[in-house]
Structure formats: C-alpha cells, structure tokens
C-alpha cells in the first residue's frame, strides 16, 4: 500500500532531475564547450580577448555604479517609507512598486522622450543638441529601475526588524544614530547584500538599455546580443558569454556563502509599526526629499509613457492621436496574446514543479538533493541572455541537443525553431522561484503535521494531497504571481529563440525602440503594463477567492444586521 505512492514521488524526482540537468546544466556547459573548443587559441588571445576585456570593463563599471546607487536608494526609501511618519507615505509605498509590473524599458522610453536628441527638456526647453547616449544614460536608467528591486527586499527587512532589540539598545543608552548603526543596519545586512547582488546581476544581464541608449558604449551583454543578431558569430558570443557568466556566478555564490555563514535572524518578529520619534528635522527633511524625488521619477516615467502613447510624433509634432493604438490593435495584437499565453503557462507549470520539488527535497530522503538544489538555482546566477545562447548552441542539434555527441539513426528532433523551446527555457529558468517559495513555507509548517497524518493511518499520497498540498498553496500562489510577471517582461532568455509566429510583446517593444518609433513603443509599453496589471488583479482574485467570499459574506451579514 505504501510502496506505490512512494514510487510515484521517486519517479517524479528522477524525471525532474534529469530534465533539469538537460535544460539547465547542459546549455550552460555547452556555452563553455562551444566558446573554448570551437576556435583556434591564437584567435582567442590576439583578437577576441582584448575586445571582450573592453566590454567587461564597461559592464563592471556600469554594474558596480548601479549597484551602489540603487542599493543606497533602496535603503533610503525603505527607511523613509517605513520609519518616518509623514503625509502621503502610504501612497508613496504603492507608487514606488510600479516599475515591477512594467517591461524593463519603460524608463528608457521616457528618458529618450525627455532627454533624447529631440527630447522635451534638452531640445525643446533648453534648445540643447547634447546626446544622452552612453555611460550616464545607462547608469541613470538602470539605477532608477533597479532601486525598486532593492527597495522591495530591503523594506521587507526593515519591516521585520525585532523592535525590542532597538528598544534594548536605546534602553542601554544608545542614541538614535547608534541604534541604527549598531543594531538596525547590521540586522538588515543579509537583505542588503541580497539586494546588491541581484541589482548587480540584473545590471550585468541587461542588454536592452545599452543597445537603446548606450550609443558607442556597449557592455558584455549588449555585445553578446550584437554578436548573435548582427554578426551571427556564435563562437565570439559564447566567449563573451563565459566572461559574462564568471562575475555573475562569483557574485551570486560569494553572497550565498557569506550570508549562509553569517546568517543572523531575529527570533521574534514584531509586526507593530514603529517610527523614529527623535529624528532631527534636517535628516527627516532629507530622507523625505530624496525619496520623493525617486518616486517622482517613477511617476514621471509613466506619465510620459501615457502622453507619448497618444502623441503624433514626439519631438516634432505633439498633436493628439489614436494612431499608435489603432496600429497595435491591427498589427501587434498577436504578440500580446502570445505574451499572456507564455506567462500563464510558465507561471503555472514552473511554480508547480518548483513547489513539488521543494516538498520532495525537504521531506524525502532521496540522494543528491543538495546537488540538484544547486543546479536548479543556477539560472538565478545566470544572465537570461547567456542561457539563451546556451539553448541556441545546444538545441540546434538533433535528439534534443545531445545529438551532436551521439551518432543516431533516428529521425532528428531539433528543438530550436519550434515554438515549445521558449516555454521550456522559461519554465526551467524559473523553477527555483517556486522551490524557494516552497522552502520558505516549509520552514513554518510544523513537521509533526505529516507524522500526525501518517499516525492516523494516511498513506504517503494522502498525506501530500490532504495535508501538504493545501498548506503549500500559498507558496504556489506567490511563485505563480512572481513567475507570471517575470515572464511577461522577460526578453534576454528568449530573444534568440523566438519565431515570427510566436513573437511576444516585450520583443516587439524592443524592436520598435531600436528603430526609434517613440509613440508606438510608448503605446505598447503602456498596454503591456496595463495587461500585466489586469491579469495580476484577476489572479489575485482567483487565488484568494475563498478569502474574498468570506469577506463578502461578512459584509452581507453586517448589512443585514444593520437592517435589523
């Protein structure tokens, strides 16, 4: 009775392990194999390396700068919005999260509209002919976009700080400044380093911003894109990819190792809201001022996207028009449908697999779980565009990729050029999200629950479906929402794998952007943001329908009690 369900879990574990090796590890290894083995070493040292080294320096320059600026802004905004009391704080907390649902180049579109060659401020107001393109443009755009990411993580830390620790420090005579520097800040270090690491990785992986506003200043990621799309030099791209991979991988694992060693956590979480009561007015003013500036930037981006979307020809003709909207509805509607299809499918399958995997790794005593965990997490450290190259060089060979190494008389199955490959890459790239959500939830699930169910006579399968599955649902929901939004706005991983028949909206925006059609790009970005928002709201309703029904019932009871 017990052995059959156990077998099902084992089978699932073996299958998922194999496919994860196949769709995550193999492509990354392939990039290395392809880059290092398929050319002469003389070429490598004489021509390729100096060029790659130049882009490497650019990438690191941008990424380090952006990491410092974004993390500082994230920290600053977290303190201001959660620890300082002022009017409009709650509204700002919502506004600051807006960039999360938008495609990555919304800011860039707005930036060009304001500061571009025909920009509203630089050209029309100041009459300048300066070019915003280059290092400053890239850094500005990435900093604003990624500060939101940093804020999201750091604010979660400041919200769960154990207030009694701060009270204890105050009680022992520490001034407010000392309390912050010796207690609050050190306790947030894990989240701050995670935020910095993620900002660094995202900046390294971002190829779209340099392509659009980098001008002559290109980075590893954008060069990689040019190598593939412009020159179709796959070997050169692979070598660039290796160089892109190394700092990202290092940053990811150094952070992981460091925080694993120095993990400190507060045992007691005090959810009560606290404010700094004794902040000097000047500091308070500065905090609010800087955070407001940041929020204004974010809001302005969207304001100008909306205006640009309905403007005839930005920089030349500011007349109102519905032309862009009509164009998109006529020509590009399919890409939106494809985006949604992809995001929903990936969100569902990837999150489900991730949560299931987390359950199996944490509760079953199967071999090699640690190694599997590592491979599943690898995409977190790998820039999407690099994984894309990996798929490109791996799956253009028959038998799902390994045909290059195996002689075969079978009919060749070549994944590259099929519609399914973009689904596969997104699913396997995001499994770790569901897995992490599953882990996080399992920490809070009483381990005796399972034993209690077994003790009452439930089979292993019943334990899963009756006990663990309902308990793990919140992890699935969280992962689903995250994966849905990520997939809606992802570009790097799939940009080389898309076919004309399954083009997605983000890619369309990117293409329109590179050909400088501001109005159309703004309209598409606006529509995609709205679409994401509508779907997120719908999923929230769907996933929390029980809660909502309960609320409705309570409301109805309340109304009827009023009538009596």
């Amino acid at each position, binding site marked *: 009775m017990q052995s059959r369900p156990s077998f099902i879990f084992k089978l699932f574990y073996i299958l998922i392990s194999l496919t994860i090796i196949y769709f995550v590890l193999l492509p990354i290894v392939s990039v290395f194999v392809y880059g290092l083995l398929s050319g002469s070493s003389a070429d490598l040292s004489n021509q390729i390396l100096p060029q790659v080294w130049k882009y490497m320096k650019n990438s690191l320059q941008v990424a380090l700068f952006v990491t410092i600026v974004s993390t500082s802004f994230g920290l600053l905004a977290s303190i201001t919005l959660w620890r300082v009391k002022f009017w409009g704080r709650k509204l700002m907390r919502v506004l600051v999260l807006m960039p999360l649902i938008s495609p990555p180049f919304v800011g860039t579109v707005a930036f060009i509209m304001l500061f571009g060659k025909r920009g509203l401020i630089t050209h029309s107001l100041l009459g300048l002919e300066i070019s915003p393109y280059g290092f400053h443009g890239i850094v500005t755009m990435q900093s604003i976009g990624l500060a939101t990411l940093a804020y999201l993580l750091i604010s979660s830390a400041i919200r769960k700080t*154990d207030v*009694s620790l701060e*009270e204890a*420090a105050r*009680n*022992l*005579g*520490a001034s407010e400044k000392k309390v912050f520097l010796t207690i609050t800040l050190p306790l947030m270090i894990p989240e701050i380093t995670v935020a910095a690491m993620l900002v660094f990785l995202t900046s390294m992986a971002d190829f779209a911003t340099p392509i659009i506003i980098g001008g002559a200043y290109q980075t590893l990621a954008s060069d990689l894109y040019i190598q593939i799309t412009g020159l179709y030099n796959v070997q050169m791209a692979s070598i660039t990819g290796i160089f892109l991979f190394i700092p990202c991988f290092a940053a990811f694992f150094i952070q992981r190792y460091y925080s694993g060693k120095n993990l400190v956590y507060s045992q007691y979480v005090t959810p009560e809201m606290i404010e700094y*009561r*004794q902040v000097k007015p000047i500091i308070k003013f500065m905090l609010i001022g800087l955070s407001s500036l940041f929020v204004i930037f974010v809001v302005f981006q969207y304001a100008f996207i909306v205006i640009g979307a309905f403007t005839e020809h930005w920089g030349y003709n500011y007349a109102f028009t519905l032309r862009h909207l009509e164009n998109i509805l006529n020509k590009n509607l399919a890409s939106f449908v494809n985006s949604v299809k992809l995001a929903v499918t990936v969100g569902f399958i990837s999150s489900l697999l991730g949560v299931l995997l987390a359950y199996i790794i944490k509760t079953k005593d199967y071999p090699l779980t640690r190694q599997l965990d590592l491979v599943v997490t690898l995409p977190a450290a790998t820039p999407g565009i690099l994984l894309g190259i990996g798929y490109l060089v791996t799956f253009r060979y028959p038998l799902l990729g390994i045909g290059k190494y195996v002689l075969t008389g079978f009919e060749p199955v070549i994944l590259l050029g099929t519609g399914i490959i973009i689904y596969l890459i997104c699913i396997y790239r995001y499994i770790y999200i569901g897995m992490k959500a599953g882990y996080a939830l399992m920490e809070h699930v009483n381990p005796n629950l399972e034993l209690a169910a077994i003790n009452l006579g439930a089979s292993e399968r019943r334990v899963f479906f009756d006990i663990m599955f309902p308990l793990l649902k919140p992890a699935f929901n969280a992962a689903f929402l995250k994966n849905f939004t990520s997939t809606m706005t992802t570009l790097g991983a799939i940009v080389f794998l898309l076919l004309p028949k399954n083009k997605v909206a983000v890619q369309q925006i990117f293409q329109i952007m590179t050909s400088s059609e501001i109005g159309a790009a703004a309209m598409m970005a606006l529509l995609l943001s709205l679409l994401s928002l509508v779907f997120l709201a719908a999923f929230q309703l769907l996933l929390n329908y029980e809660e909502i029904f309960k609320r409705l019932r309570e409301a109805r009871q309340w109304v009827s009690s009023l009538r009596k």
Partner: protein
Amino acid sequence: MGIELKEITQKYGDLIAVNNANLFIEDGEMIALLGPSGCGKTTLLKTIAGLLPLHQGSILSNEKDISKLPPQARNAAMVFQNYALFPHMTVAENVAYGLKINKCEPSLIKKKVEEILDKVELPGLNQRKISELSGGQQQRVALARALVIEPAMLLFDEPLSNLDQNLRVSMRRMIRKIQQEYRITSIYVTHDQEEAMSISDRIVVMKDGVIQQIGLPGEVYLKPRNRFVAEFMGTANLLELNEHDRIIQLLECGKWASSRDNCPVGASNNRQKRCLLFRPEDVEVGAEGRFEGTVIWHETIGSVTRVTIDFAGNEIIAEIRNYYKSGINCTTGEKIRFNIDLAGDSHIVPN
C-alpha cells in the same frame, strides 16, 4: 533611588491601557506589577523606561521629573520578555554594548563583563553566539547586560515566562539575590502570582489598566481588597454573602461564631454584594467537621491533595496534607466532613 508615579494615564488610540496610576517605590525596593495579560503592566513598565511616550501624568526619580527624558538618559536598564539579545553579536559583545555606548575604557569593559558573567554564573561563554545558548543562559546574558551598566533602576518584563518551571524557580532566586545585593530599585512585571509573591517586597495588582491593590505579599494574599485580587492571588473559595442565604446560617453555627467581629450579617447592611473568602488551607477535612459536603473531584499533587467539595450548591476547595497517611476517603461521590477556620483576619471582600 526612589521612584514616584503620579496620575499616569496611557492610551493606545481610544483604548486606555493605564488609568490614573499612582505608586511610590522606595529606594532599593523590588516591586512586582502583577496582573493578567492586557492589564497594562507592561505598558506601565515601558512608560517608566521611556520607550513609550507619556500621555498624561509624571514620573519622578528622587523627586526630579524624568517624564520628558529620552530612554537613553533614564539609566533604567530593562530585561525584556524575549531577552532582546542582539543576534549579530557574541555574549561578551552583548554584555559590553551598554558600556561601549557610554564610552567606557576597553580594559575596564573586559574586566566588568567578566565579573558580571561570573555573577550570573555564565563564566567562559564570552565568545558564544546567542543562537548557541539555551533559554536559561540567554536569560542570564540579558540580566548581565542590564546589570553591567550599574543602572539606577532595573525593569523586568516577564523575564522568566519562556523558561520551564524548575529553571524559573532558580532564576528568580538569582534575580532576587543580586537585586538585594546591589540594592537596585526594581520593578518586576509578571502574571504569575507565585513569582510575584516570592520575588518582591511589595505587590501591585492591576486589572484593565487600573491598580487594584498595593501591599506586602502577605497582605495582598490574606486581605485582598476585592474579589478579583482574591481570585488572582492563588486559589480562593468565595461564597457570595446574602442575609437569607443558608450558607451563612450554616456558618454561623460553626466556627464563625467565635469571631463575632467579622459577622457577615452585620456587614451586609451595606447594599454592595460581598463575598466570604477563605483559602483551601483554611478548610480542615476530618470526621469531626461541622459541615458535610460531597466530593466532586480530587487530585494529589505530591505533598497536598486538593479536594473539590459540593457544599449546598457551592464548590469549595480544600487541601489535605499527607493524604495517603491521613485515612481520609476522598472518592468522588462520597460524603465528607470539614470545618472552615475563619479565626484569622477580615475575610469579607466586595464582590
């Protein structure tokens, strides 16, 4: 250092957490703030520490108003319920924190930290991480961290509530011993009546933000001012008094008659409802007892056996010492005879 609380009222929004509290604490005295959860005792403590802004009233320390002082300047070290030890520091760093903040010399810090860790019986654990300590050890680090800055007053916020019973007993003895040795004015918040009685010089009983009674442990136990205090301080037998009640008549022909001063009949001229209080140890079970009841339940807890007796529709709890040797039969449903010893002090409390 003597501390005086004058007409303190604290509110959370519309909710009154502390209502017009007045209290004087002598220099070197240990006061227990006792009450159920939500009675305002922790709010009052945090107000004294300056961790909550004062809504109304004033706090005097040696006749000096300290109500406006920030928590840093009050020199009132607190021991928190969850210990609030800094998880990113070692034991020694935690204890040294207050000294470092006050710019103490490093060599002196080292010496003081070691001395105080010896005092709380934690020698040799300086370099341990907080997460590597047991609950009792964490509690002692928290105590050491508060003591080492030589505070003018010590504030305890239910410090032992996360420990097991045996540890609680030994820890409260340590706290009391150290407090008496250093003669530090202390306030000790607890919801445990036994802890409050054993550790403090005086007890302040609180309910719904209002101080119910202030007194010596014996006073509060033997002469509770009202029914709430009576029931909160240990097990109480409370019989509602009523002129026409059969119980009084029963009692009047018993030992009650011997202490005429406390005659409930005379006292009940007052309209307010009153209760007759006696403790389980006031009930003497024995064959020669004047009253008869029926055993509802009995449980033996080592040295004593508690018997619940149905007495004319009222439940009375009695204590029997040495039950196994006494020859008394406490089987449920059996009749049992007993006396009530009311020879002591006033036993009548407002309902």
